[in-house]
């Protein structure tokens, strides 16, 4: 209960102080430098080339999605979304797979690094846009959001934890083994992945990040692209949307 009494302003200070705590001075210097020069830029660029060379670039993507190239950024900012001809609420990566299949190209696995790069590139087309997810748009996106929220709140695994155990409003800013618990909305988690993860020295996607938390907290890791994962992405992205966090890909994470 004492947690609820902490004024919000104080919690924010605690979070910032904690952040410094979790990083050494050397790490922080590196972080500052990487902010200027994100190592993941090169993966995003690679993703752009792959899209251009193997699938026909933005033009082909816009055509597949049934929008004009000009409308593309705002439309991308609405993912995950229901794509009628695909029959599901899907992520950008799944759209890219469907394009690959339609064009008779090799279908990358969802966890393939090249897929991560392409996904990052396509999402970066929506940079500076805010999410345009409308969970009232149709029954499919509503169901996906609900499943995401349910998955977020379901306790399971070796320690009986749920995502909510560590990411609920009343414990944001507290410290779990030197790591301050982030406010997933305020840090714009949905808007800043794919990101370069310094501790993993690689480009990671949002769903891959979810898997990291599952593994650490002993929740059985569920596969990328499953309905539950897509739902989690919808749910987490709407948290960033509520906080008006603009899309900024690639992100840079500790």
């Amino acid at each position, binding site marked *: 209960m004492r947690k609820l009494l902490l004024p919000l302003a104080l919690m924010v200070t605690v979070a910032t102080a904690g952040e410094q705590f979790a990083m050494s001075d050397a790490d922080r210097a590196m972080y500052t430098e990487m902010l200027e020069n994100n190592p993941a830029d090169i993966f995003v660029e690679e993703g752009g080339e792959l899209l251009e060379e193997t699938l026909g670039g933005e033009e082909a993507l816009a055509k597949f999605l049934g929008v004009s190239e000009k409308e593309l950024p705002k439309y991308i900012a609405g993912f995950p979304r229901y794509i009628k*001809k*695909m*029959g*599901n609420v*899907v992520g950008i990566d*799944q*759209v890219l*797979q*469907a394009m690959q*299949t*339609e064009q008779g190209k090799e*279908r990358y*696995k*969802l966890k393939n690094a090249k897929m991560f790069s392409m996904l990052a590139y396509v999402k970066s087309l929506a940079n500076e846009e805010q999410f345009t997810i409308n969970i009232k748009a149709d029954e499919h996106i509503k169901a996906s959001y609900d499943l995401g929220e349910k*998955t977020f709140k*379901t*306790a*399971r*695994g*070796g*320690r*009986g*934890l749920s995502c909510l*155990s*560590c990411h*609920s409003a009343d*414990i944001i800013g*507290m*410290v*779990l*083994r*030197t790591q301050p*618990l982030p406010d997933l909305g305020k840090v714009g988690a949905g808007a800043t992945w794919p990101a370069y993860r310094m501790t993993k020295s690689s480009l990671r996607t949002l769903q891959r990040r979810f898997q990291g938390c599952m593994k650490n907290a*002993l*929740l*059985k890791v*569920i*596969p*990328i*692209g*499953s*309905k*539950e*994962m*897509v739902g989690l992405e919808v749910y987490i992205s709407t948290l960033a949307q509520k906080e008006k966090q603009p899309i900024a890909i690639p992100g840079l994470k500790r």
Partner: protein
Amino acid sequence: MNRSMKQFTLVSLAIVSATVTIFATDLTKAYDMPDASKLIEKDLLAEATKFTMPKSCKLDDLEAIKRGSFFFHNLNGKKVKGDAPKGVVKFTEKKTKDGKVKKVAKQYGNCVACHNIEGAKGAGNIGPDLTGYKAMFVDTKVRDAQFVYQKIADPRVDNKETHMTVNLTTKLFNESEICDLTAYVMSVKK
């Protein structure tokens, strides 16, 4: 349009639509959407469960306290440098589907991730500080061994909304290991 022209158009239309049908991919199967519901189903947490501390719990046993301390401060067998205390394993063996034997790290409590306590390194503050627990809570009769045992075994029984881990209902630990943790939390530390 003259007749032959009309026929030509019709024929080519037929050809075009035939090509379209042949090459139109069924996009509902053109991407991966693996099932996760069964994985989650098997991984669900059982109902909050009441436990009674077994009579066999030896709260003053120094060996038990040592094991409890080890469980409290460590995450799993793979992360431990050096030896585990007597009677504690770092790895267990598990048979995989294809009959091979796999070494899996034994998971410990990692309580220090959320609780400060005497000698803690990098403790978190999600849970209350357990420093001086005996003097402050046990000697003053605010808490007893049964309370501590239940809290560690399944904290949901007295706090539905708890952020704490569930340690016995999940079978992460067995009864005797929960005794060890209880003994450690309640012990006088230097």
